[in-house]
């Protein structure tokens, strides 16, 4: 079942069976066409989970390589975009759990398009800075829950944390974001 905030990405056309077959047989050019189409989705997921560009690029690359390896096992009962979205989420969370994150100079993400409408006085730079400054333990479940709309049980599975812990982390993540945004707006 696709997550509830998945709408935008679900509109991307799935690769045709022929494209998939060629990529699954090791045709790198066919695979590259798939990467070009979905790189925005995969990179955005990785950036939101990890909070910086360097780690996001590594994790996004890992997600696409897992996709390349697993293509022969992909079955079309799930939309390709949904399947790849899951791979991107799990690759990013695995990366976060495994790698030491690199401190990086504060840099706003590159938005592909216009400045989004996020709410009264909330800019993209404010929101991403607030997310980046959350402790990993809060940010990852909060991103999965409120940015991507995953059910708590699924977040517990992906992050390998108890359900109750995940809920508390999300509640704290929200509270901390709320205070931060409020403080920034008042300053």
């Amino acid at each position, binding site marked *: 079942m696709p997550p509830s905030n998945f709408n935008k990405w679900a509109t991307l056309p799935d690769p045709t069976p022929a494209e998939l077959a060629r990529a699954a047989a090791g045709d790198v050019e066919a695979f590259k066409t798939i990467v070009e189409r979905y790189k925005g989705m995969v990179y955005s997921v990785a950036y939101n989970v990890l909070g910086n560009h360097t780690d996001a690029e590594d994790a996004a690359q890992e997600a696409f390589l897992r996709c390349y390896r697993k293509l022969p096992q992909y079955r079309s009962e799930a939309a390709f975009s949904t399947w790849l979205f899951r791979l991107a989420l799990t690759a990013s969370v695995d990366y976060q759990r495994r790698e030491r994150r690199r401190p990086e100079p504060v840099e706003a993400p590159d*938005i592909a398009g216009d400045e989004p409408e*996020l709410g009264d006085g909330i800019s993209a730079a404010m*929101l991403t800075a607030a997310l980046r400054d959350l402790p990993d333990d809060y940010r990852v479940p909060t991103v999965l829950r409120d940015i991507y709309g995953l059910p708590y049980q699924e977040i517990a599975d992906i992050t390998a944390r108890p359900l109750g812990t995940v809920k508390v982390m999300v509640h704290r993540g929200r509270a901390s974001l709320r205070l931060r945004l409020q403080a920034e707006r008042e300053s």
Partner: protein
Amino acid sequence: MDCSYFGSRLNLYVDGELGYLEVAELQGHLSFCPDCAAELARLSEVRGALAAWGEVELAPPPGFAERIAAAAAQEARPGQATVGRVVGGALEALDDALGRIPLPGGRTVPVKNVLGYGIAATAVIIQVERFLRRTRELKPL
């Protein structure tokens, strides 16, 4: 019932985790408590901003697709098992299971690296032994 009781339920409320009686009770309180109503509005605002952010597409760095295609070209064909991939897969599973080994000085090293170097070293030793055996066998000639 005071505000701290209802305040602690706002997260459950927005997550749809309250029963209908609890929802009715909370909504009753919200209808005459501006503090809790404001609290709910702020919580909903944050959630709204996050959900809207989820629709935003971020641009990967230039050359991203090319680098991935190049990395994919280094791989064996998908689905085709190679010794490297089988060993790599097993190491990755071990890595997930075992995590990292602490080194002196507070650094850590993934278990898979230690095992990986071990396997690589074994392979080198086998090759060297083979070579030595062959030179020994050749000597009498």
